[in-house]
């Protein structure tokens, strides 16, 4: 699989940033990078498995901002407080993660 599929037929990949609540670190997420990739480049290790929004290994709590869920596994209740950071984007400028 060479490109990230999406549940919506067309998705505009928009720039946003993640803020890590515990360190205050603000990391921009370019359109061609996942949150997980950005975290790893910053030296923050995150457990992942499928990296396609299927297994929920990377399920992470968020505290502020509006995620754009791209997974196929979280239910509506979970989506109110968690994102799968292997594939999620954000429609707000900043997504604050409980990391």
């Amino acid at each position, binding site marked *: 699989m060479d490109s990230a599929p*999406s549940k919506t037929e067309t998705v505009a990949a928009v720039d946003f940033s993640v803020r890590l609540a515990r360190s205050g670190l603000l990391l921009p997420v370019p359109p061609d990078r996942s949150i997980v990739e950005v975290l790893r480049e910053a030296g923050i290790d995150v457990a992942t498995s499928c990296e396609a*929004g299927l297994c929920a290994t990377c399920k992470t709590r968020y505290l502020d901002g509006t995620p754009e869920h791209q997974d196929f596994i979280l239910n509506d209740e979970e989506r109110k407080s968690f994102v799968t950071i292997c594939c999620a984007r954000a429609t707000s400028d900043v997504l604050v993660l409980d990391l």
Partner: protein
Amino acid sequence: MVSELDFRKGIRTDGAYRGYDQRLGTTENRSEALELLLTGPGSPMNEYMRRYWQPVCLSEQLTDVPKAIRILHEDLVAFRDRSGDVGVLQRRCSHRGSSLEFGIVAEHGIRCCYHGWLYDVDGTILETPCEAAGNRLQQTICQPAYPAFERDGLVFAYMGPPEAVPPFDLLDDYVLPEGTRLRAFSNEFACNWLQVYENLIDHYHTAILHNNMTVEGVDAALAAGASFGGGWGELPVINWQPVHNGHGMIFTAGRRVSDTKVWIRISEMGFPNFCTNAALAPSAARQRHSNVAMTRWQVPVDDTNSIAFGWRHFNDEVDPDHIGREEDCGVDKIDFLIGQTRHRSYDEQQRIPGDYEAITSQGAGGVAIHRLEHPGRSDVGVYMCRSLLRDALRGKTGPDPTRILSEAGGDTLARCTSDTVVEVPKLADRDADRALIQERADQVLAVMKEAEHVPSLERRKHVLYRLDEIDGGLGPFED
């Protein structure tokens, strides 16, 4: 070779030998999975499937005696009365509960063998021989019945609320190209319906399971019969996406078949349980464009048994070399790939495993356990299917624009399902080449979607014209 001495030094457990940790593993599904898997009376999936015409048996199963069938956990009897009308009734006689599978098919309707109550195909009581003339039974009792009709060897019933009867979706591929012959078949699976249905969208398996996945030394003809051959062995570039406003989904699978040519295969699912396959012959990888070669509905019998009912489509576009065998399609038999049905010895199942073995053995007791799966990126299609199906089941999906278009225009419906070969000169870099293949697959899919808005009789011409625009026309194969 490992000996017991190796274990005296202690057993490594970092990512290995973790059996003991997981000995108490669950065999239960979460509620989100059960919502899709369980189809019992009153369940959301049962109600969802009842909103569509479902095949319930083959025409050839309706003879001079009734056919006992079980569909969506309901015991039924199907018959064709002597006037030619088809009836699908609940199996227990309304009078004293005898099974109507022992009833006698009449000129109009079916007569219970016990006291002779005669029911018309719509369940109306026509005669109650033991009762006095002028009795009121006919006014108060009706044998539970469902509307049914026959088409091209399949018997369809509508088991939903009478006020919501939907049109039967007529696809182009039932009548086009001209001369198309539909052959009805069934395929019985001793497992839950969903794992069979998902198999279509799990397209990566075709390059593995259907590619000489056999024990060494098996009969060469059997091994070949269990493999597709041709371009199928190439691991495809696959993508998935919803279509028809979430009422279905497709995959595109691109495989390089020569230095200049790429084969793009598209298959489509229509929720809740319908799907169409493109060609089942190697010619698919060498032809400009062909469409549906198999139509299927995966119908639950109960939660651990299901039946695929469908048609194989025979015409010179999907099978120009005539390798398909119409005579091998029928009740619980199908003419492609060894390993589709349950009629094999255990030894052969183990040595030459096929779809039947891979699918029915998933999970426990015939039901896949979703929470025990470990999906990878190749499994996006399966998970997307479950997610879209759940949304549709919950009524979150809007109207299907294509169906509305067809109803308004009275024309047959198009599917994206197709095999197409396009000119795509190979790039030296493998990743760049695979990205290019996906780009072409997206273009072909766009053409197929665009063609949905063209009248059915113009559709093929339109698609061929657009394909020529993409690559300047298909040249000859080099080899």
